[in-house]
């Protein structure tokens, strides 16, 4: 390697900062100190040392791992360590043999073997023509050649060996194989990135390889896998928020003097009331009415926000939720305490009566809401509207919204679209925001910041 360890260390720290991981100068120095005391040849312990000194939030960890694999690659092409006796020669075996080998790795392989196998598979299948006269490395060609997900049936047949299908045993094996496939995919992707970096420089690939941390992912571009991960985050997030809110409430205005406790405490200091005690202030708990657009374009945003507010139920006296596409229905009943999250969402989509013609119509929905559920809004209510304000060029019914807002204590509109897209096409965000303060709410970070101001 041409550059020194210090250069590499500094480059790595810079790349981390560029990827949004806040690394202070002191932390960089800590890492450098750590390099002096650990065994540099042991790659996993080097990784752990960097992680311990530089990455202080689990959300940054995936990005860190990607960058670490680029800056401190496990192997350099043409410089492999001496291979041990192998059961299979990866460059000459038939695809069928390779698939057999992969199947055995998926059920009981150790990480090291898996990585080595992934490397040799990238070497064999990963090189593809990328445009005229150029060649590139790709993971999809490796995955297509081996198609690990089609191995499931074979593995199940082997492992279960005549046991009953569909039971717990099968579920366990499936979970194990799926985890293995994910590990294999990751190992392949890592090796592909490493090879691209060798061809065209680390900095080039580093910029595109790191995905934003979970709380920065755009709601409107969320993938199915991300949504599942977001849903998992709902309860921890709600717990964190709730804790912060209770602290904030307690820290606020002090209540009346608690005479009895103050006197009791003064006995410790000989009758002198050195410390005064106060009664806790009466907590302020708003009533919340959520009106959310559940049409496909913004549904992932609406779902996540609904889940979060329901997980935070204790922070509000009462939460009522209404969903609409072009007509409106109350959806509070799907969120009974202890209800299953995923099930609530599917039932909501199937049973609630929110669709007339199937095209979002804010004006009509607002009118129907005022007509049928107008009494839900009172002087104690905070009204929260979730949607992108894209109404398919239908009349926006601003008057209705104005009267709803004037009857409520507070009203807010959360829009999952970036601010610069408001008022483009059929969006009437500008008109609505004259009546209701409208906030851009594109990711979990913005949402939590908003909820903190709300409660």
């Amino acid at each position: 390697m041409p550059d020194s360890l210090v250069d590499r260390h500094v480059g790595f720290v810079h790349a981390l900062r560029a990827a949004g991981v806040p690394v202070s100068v002191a932390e960089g120095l800590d890492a450098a100190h750590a390099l002096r005391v650990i065994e540099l040849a042991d790659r996993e312990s080097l990784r752990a040392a960097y992680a311990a000194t530089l990455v202080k939030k689990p959300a940054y960890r995936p990005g860190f791992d990607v960058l670490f694999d680029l800056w401190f690659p496990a192997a350099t092409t043409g410089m492999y360590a001496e291979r041990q006796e192998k059961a299979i020669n990866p460059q000459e075996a038939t695809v069928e043999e390779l698939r057999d080998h992969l199947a055995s790795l998926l059920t009981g392989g150790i990480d090291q073997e898996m990585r080595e196998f992934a490397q040799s598979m990238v070497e064999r299948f990963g090189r593809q023509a990328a445009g005229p006269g150029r060649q590139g490395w790709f993971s999809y060609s490796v995955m297509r050649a081996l198609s690990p997900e089609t191995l499931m049936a074979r593995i199940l047949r082997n492992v279960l060996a005549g046991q009953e299908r569909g039971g717990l045993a099968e579920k366990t094996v499936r979970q194990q194989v799926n985890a293995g496939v994910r590990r294999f995919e990751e190992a392949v992707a890592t090796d592909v990135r490493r090879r691209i970096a060798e061809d065209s420089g680390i900095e080039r690939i580093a910029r595109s390889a790191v995905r934003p941390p979970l709380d920065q992912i755009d709601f409107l571009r969320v993938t199915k896998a991300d949504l599942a991960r977001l849903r998992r985050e709902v309860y921890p997030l709600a717990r964190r928020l709730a804790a912060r809110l209770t602290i904030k409430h307690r820290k606020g205005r002090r209540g009346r003097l608690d005479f009895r406790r103050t006197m009791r405490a003064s006995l410790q200091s000989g009758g002198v009331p050195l410390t005064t005690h106060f009664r806790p202030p009466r907590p302020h708990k708003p009533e919340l009415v959520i009106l959310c657009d559940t049409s496909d374009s913004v549904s992932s945003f609406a779902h996540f926000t609904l889940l979060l507010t329901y997980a935070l139920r204790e922070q509000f006296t009462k939460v009522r939720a209404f969903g609409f596409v072009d007509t409106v229905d109350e959806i509070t009943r799907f969120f009974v305490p202890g209800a299953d999250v995923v099930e609530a969402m599917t039932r909501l989509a199937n049973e609630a009566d929110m669709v007339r013609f199937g095209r979002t119509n804010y004006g009509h929905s607002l009118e129907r809401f005022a007509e049928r559920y107008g009494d839900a809004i009172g002087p104690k209510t905070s009204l929260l509207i979730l949607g992108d304000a894209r109404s398919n060029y239908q009349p926006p019914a601003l008057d209705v919204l104005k009267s709803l807002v004037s009857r409520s204590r507070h009203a807010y509109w959360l829009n999952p679209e970036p601010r610069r897209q408001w008022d483009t096409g059929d969006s009437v965000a500008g008109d609505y925001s004259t009546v209701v303060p409208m906030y851009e709410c594109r990711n979990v970070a913005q949402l939590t910041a908003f909820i903190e101001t709300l409660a």
Partner: protein
Amino acid sequence: MFDSPADVTERLAAVDYLSDDAISTSVFLAAALGKPLLVEGPAGVGKTQLAKAVALATRAELIRLQCYEGLDEARALYEWNYKKQLLRIQATSDDDDIFSEEFLLERPLLKAIRSDDPTVLLIDETDKADVEVEGLLLELLSDFQVTIPELGTIAATRRPYVVLTSNATRELSEALKRRCLYLHIEYPTPERERDIVLSQVPTIRADLAEQLARTVATLRALELKKAPSVAETVDWANTLLALGRDELDEATVAGTLGVVLKHASDHERAVKELGLPDA
């Protein structure tokens, strides 16, 4: 304290704590660089246990500060013994100095700083304490000294090995995190969890432990409110032993699911997704 990460692994294993690469390296670095170690992770993955194991492995005294809401200086650091001071003022007429060593009540943090013997200071569930306590910890963790206005600054005679744990119910301040090495412990891989079960419950059969670890991994893959912790897996192993079961079939799982899942909705979900018979 330790020679290398491998040495950490070995000595922790000797006191029945199975570590992995990340844990061993972080523990080793914390000792080698003389920095506090902040351990985060879901409940029940063995964060507190790690501190106890380090104390046991290095034959150090474990001093524990349990954080809770409303924890203050007087409980964490030191307190003046008011009663004794009052009595002294009333008993003697000459103006004795009542802010001296003999009126000082030592609390865990001060005790750890002043101890001459090797100590492991465990500050447990740091996230439960108020933000002010973090401010209090800053001086202690960066310079290993505390300042008592009446007595002056007391520096550590021997640096304690500090472990902070947190469940991340609230984000700890950047300033605190910057001063610590950070270790995030996740749920272990099924292989490691099997070994943990085997070391904690030595009488269990290896294949049953394996089955148990795989089943728990399957449960964790479901979207649950509260995923089963390592401690609960160990409880489950003990339960199976007590019931005399040597096979983890559907009926057994359904009957003992309450050991690992503590929410009614999680229970229903697991029964549905895993196709268990109704218990």
